[in-house]
Every structure is written in C-alpha cells, then in structure tokens.
C-alpha cells in the first residue's frame, strides 16, 4: 500500500533530476560566458533597485557595467542584512562564478563581507560604506562618496529659494552620514542668509512612505517652503512637497521628473562613473585601495541640473562654490562651528577637510538646525 507513495516520491525525484540535468545546459548561459575569460560581477541591493533613490543609484552603476564587453552582471535586490546576504554572495561566487561583488548596503560589511572575504581570497569585494580598517582582509574594499558637498550646494540653492527662511529635512535615523548631510545642507543655506533654519524630522526607518508624507505635510503646516530628505526612496517626499507647493532638493538619484514645479536641484551619486573604473582595475590586475573616497572632484557624486525656477543669484553662488569644490579648495566644515545647543564643535582655527576622520563620527547638529540627535 505504501508502495504507491514510495513510487510517486521516487519518480518525482527522478523526473526532477532528469529535468535538472537536461536544462542545466540549455537555459543557463553562465558557464559559457565564464569560459570566454570574462568577469562575472554580482550586485546586491538592500531595497528595490527602481526606488528613485539609494538602490536605483547603484543599479545605474551596474547598468553602466553591463555595457562593458566581457562583463557579466547579475543582480539581486531586497536582500536583508542577515545570513541572506552572506548566502547570496556565496551563491554568486559558487553558482555564478562571480569574481567581483558589490554588496551595496552599509550593513552588509560587518560581519558578512569580512567573513566571506577571508573564506574566498580570490574574490574581490567592493562594499559601499567606507568601512575598511587596517588588519581586515586584503580583498575587501569599501568606498563612499562625500555627498555632503552636493548637499551643501543644494543648501545654497534652497537658501535662495526660501521665502519663509525655514527649510525642512526628513531623515531616517540620526546616524553620522545623515547628520553630515543635514549639517552641510544647513551650512550651505546659512551661507546665503544666516537667519535660515532647518527643521529635522526623523521617521525612524529607511522606507516609511506614510510617515514621510506625514512629515512633509507637517513641515508645510509649519511654514517650511523647501524640503529635502535622506531616506532610501525620496519619491514620496518629493511628490508630497510638489502637491503642497513646496520646493524640493533631491537625494540619491535625480527626481526632477517627479516634481517639475518644485525640484530645484539635488545631491546624486555618480556610481556609473566609479564602477567601470573599478572593473577596469580588476581586469587589469591593478591594486585598488582599500578605502576609496571622493566627492565632486573625484566625480563620485554630482548635482542634479538646476530646475528652471532657480534664479540667477542662486546659480551664480552655487556654481562658484562648486568650482572650488571641484578644485579641492573649499572646506565645508570650517571653524568656528557651533552645534544647535550652543557648544563649539569645531574651533575657529580648525578646518576639517573632507578626508578628516573626525567627520566620520559626526554626532551633532549645527546651529540653525531644529531637532536633536537622540
């Protein structure tokens, strides 16, 4: 009696195995691509890669790689920072033959990238976040961009655009990267008019559409007329601001299409320039530094083209500062800078250039920001 069951199970397994053998050759182009001596590159995103934001910026970088001859790109999105990402990377190595992996979320590095870099010394890991420390595996690399430079420029444009002298910044969490952006944006705006303030609202997580919309609305109610954000997908903030007749500056990618009336400019990643250069180095067998950082000068970040509503004065001032940033002669965090509780955080004689390690652990909001870091 139970034989039937046995048979059905066995035949099921059998047909599965036959299917596997038959299809493995026909449907999967990877074996051949590798045989041609090319490079298989894996991209891992923490969210959807068409989010008008963080992940889309990386996906645009991946798209640039797809155009290169001999480079095969595989992508996996919405991979959480758990064993999922560890196994995704290993799967890319074992099943796709990936030799170069881009784990693009900050939280992928420790412990996952570190662990796998030790285990697979012939695979190169290019992590986005700028985390590598001395003593960590040689084949692990981490890069990041000084996007606060572009935020400073956005701040200048916002400072010219605001009538109420009140700006808004919707952010996920009070972490150093975010605080640095808020501060740069505010410093840029206050270089136009020192009476300008920036209201900050933390939503608590990287993707919370209803909270983001609600924060934008409550800012509009408080008379704020330019709003920007640091969340994974700025789409909701930009669209809501457009509906409320506010100006916006974008983040991560270009959101101008979402807000034709209000999109002033924005701070964007420029991964489509950086990633092909990494691949070229890997193919040429060149050593890539463990930490790669840069801003406008190194073309790692860029600004969105100005919207038509941006006035001549704003363009002139922003362009002038941009030229200095591109030349590497402008310092954003230049003392004296006070935090919003009145303490001096950067003394008058101190000038913290972009590479200054102190900026990496920023824990304050500068004078003029309304909000607190905890």
């Amino acid at each position, binding site marked *: 009696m139970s034989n039937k069951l046995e048979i059905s199970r066995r035949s099921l397994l059998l047909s599965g195995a036959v299917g596997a053998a038959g299809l493995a050759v026909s449907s999967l182009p990877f074996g051949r691509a590798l045989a041609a001596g090319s490079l298989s590159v894996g991209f891992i995103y923490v969210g*959807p890669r*068409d*989010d*008008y934001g963080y992940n889309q910026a990386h996906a645009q970088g991946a798209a640039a790689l797809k155009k290169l001859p001999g480079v095969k790109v595989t992508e996996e999105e*919405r991979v959480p920072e758990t064993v999922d990402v560890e196994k995704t990377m290993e799967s890319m190595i074992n099943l796709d033959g990936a030799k170069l992996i881009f784990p693009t979320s900050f939280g992928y590095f420790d412990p996952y990238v570190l662990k796998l870099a030790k285990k697979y010394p012939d695979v190169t890991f290019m992590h986005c976040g700028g985390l590598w420390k001395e003593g960590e595996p040689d084949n692990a690399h981490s890069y990041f961009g000084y996007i606060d430079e572009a935020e400073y420029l956005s701040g200048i444009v916002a400072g010219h655009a605001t009538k*109420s*002298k*009140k700006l808004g910044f919707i952010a996920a969490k009070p972490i150093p990267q975010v605080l640095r952006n808020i501060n740069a944006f505010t410093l840029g705006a206050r270089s136009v008019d020192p*009476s300008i303030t920036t*209201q*900050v*609202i*933390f*939503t*608590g997580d990287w*993707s*919370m*559409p*209803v*909270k*983001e*919309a*609600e*924060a934008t*609305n*409550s*800012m*509009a*109610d*408080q*008379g704020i007329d330019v709003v920007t954000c640091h969340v994974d*997908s700025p*789409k*909701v903030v930009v*669209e*809501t601001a457009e*509906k*409320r007749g506010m100006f916006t500056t974008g983040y991560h990618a270009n959101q101008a*299409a*979402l807000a034709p009336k209000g999109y002033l400019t924005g701070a964007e990643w420029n991964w489509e320039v950086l990633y092909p250069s990494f691949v070229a180095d890997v193919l040429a067998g060149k050593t890539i530094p463990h930490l790669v950082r840069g801003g406008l000068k190194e073309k790692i970040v860029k600004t969105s083209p100005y919207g038509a509503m941006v006035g001549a004065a704003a363009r002139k001032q922003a362009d002038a500062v941009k030229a200095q940033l591109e030349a590497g002669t402008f310092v954003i965090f230049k003392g004296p800078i006070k935090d919003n509780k009145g303490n001096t955080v950067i003394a008058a004689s101190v000038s913290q250039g972009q590479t200054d390690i102190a900026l990496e652990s920023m824990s304050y909001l500068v004078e003029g920001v*309304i*909000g*607190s870091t*905890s």
Partner: protein
Amino acid sequence: MDETSIGWWGVPLAIFAGAIRISTPFLFVSLGEMVTEKSGRINLGLEGTLIMGAMSGYGIAYLTGSPWLGVLVAGLVGIAFGMLHAGICSLPKVNDIAVGIALMLLGTGLAFYLGKPLVQPQAPNLPSINFGWWSDLQQVQSALKINALFIIGVVLAPVFLWALRNTRWGLILRIVGDSSDAARAMGYSPLAVRLAATAFGGFMAGVGGSFLSLYYPGSWNEGLSSGQGITAVALVIFARWNPMNCLWASLLFGGASALGPALQSVGVTQGYYLFNAAPYVLTLLILVLSSSSHRHIAGAPGELSVTR
C-alpha cells in the same frame, strides 16, 4: 518671518489633518471587515487585499489616466480576493484565520510581483475637495483639503448603522452571524450570505488600498502598507462591530499615527520610535479595557471564531 508659523497650534491641527489623511484606509477596511465579521467570519487577509488594491488601482490609473477607474478596479480585485477567502472557508474543516493569513501572504506576494513595473511611473492621483476656502491660514486650508473617499467613508458609517438595524439585508446578516442554525431554519444559506459579506469586505479593502496609492501618500511601492489592513481588522473588534465606532476608531488611529511627525516638527524629538508605536499601544489598551472573559463582548456576532 513668523507670520506663516502657527507654532504649537500646529500639533492639534496636524493631528486633526493627519487623522483625516491617514484614517481613510482604516475606515474603509474596518467598515468592510465589520460587515464580514457580522456574518460570522473574520478575514485577516484584508492586508493582502489592501496591498493588491493599492497596486491594481495604481496600475489602472496609470494605464487609463483615470484614478476613479483605478479605485473601481481595486474594489473589483478586492471582491475577487474576498470571494477566494469565502470560497476556501466554505470548505469543511477550514479555519478562517488561517485562510486569512494565507491570503495576506498571497496578496502581498502577487502585488509585489505584478507591481514591479509600477514603482517608477507616476499615476494621476485622486482629486481633493477644498473645504478650507473660508480660512486665510494656509495650514487650515491644506488640512481641510479632503478626499472624496474619506467623505464617502464618513457617510457610509451611519448608513451602515441604519442599514444593519433597519433593513432586511441587515437583519439577515445579523441572523447568519449570530446563529447559522437559526438562519438555515429561516431559509437563508449561511454560506451564500457569508460569501456576499466577505466579497463586500474585500471590495472595501481594495478601495481602501487604492486610497493609499492614489491619494495619500499617493504612489506605489513595496513599503506602502505598514500593516494598515491587519490593524483595521483589530479596530473592528475594539469598535465592537458598530460602524460609527469604526469611524471614531479609524480617526483615533490616524491621529495617533500623525502624532510622531507632528511633535517632532515643533521640537519634541525624543523617543520617536515610541511615538510611532503609539497607535498599536492604544489599540491594545482599548482592546484590553473593552474585553472581558466573563461576558460576551457586546455586539459580537455569535458565530465569530475570534470571540468564542
């Protein structure tokens, strides 16, 4: 420079405006679920229905250019999901809560799968009606820009209350919900009535979902719902199956959701996670206070599994 600011007055205003903006999906889902539960069945799958409604409504609005057509299709998709739920539940030995959880998963998965190409495009949004013309304050004006769906929901609540008490349909629904045997004795088929009630609940949830994607926040992505559908099911229980209470509960929940951002915008910046959790704490508290192990919850349908 301060003429545009209303300072601390912004908090109650933001909570009021937030209550109206955020409550609509809760209102629609809870009103629909109220009808379903009155028939003696609980549909936890409305979370999946809501997300499917949001996705399909957005997709149709994008393809046809008509947001109202999107709302309609979202409702129809909701009916399909409701009927699927009712259909499986009408099989013997099937637990309605389990089916609900299954459909929550299926609806979410399908919506994410099919909605992938809809994350980028912008669909036309539902219009709002301006009730704030009398005020000079731009904040008041914007708070009183109210979507027609919200008004429909507000009107539906008393209509439902009246219909439940005074119409033949309402009577049949209540009889089926209180005792299948009695209903059968009177010649009504409990399964058919529950099918209709669950399909209706699905319709309302689908429409509620389309509000999310077509009005507020007004775009489609995978993070759109943070559990609004399933929370609305909880709201029905603490609203004690009374449509007017569904309305108040939804408004309360919407207002509580607006509390976090509103307080931050006037400078209260501590503990925003706890403020974000406020709606859930509130729901749980009211649920605890309004329940009792000794007596049946007033208004609870006798056939409803969650109250037995």
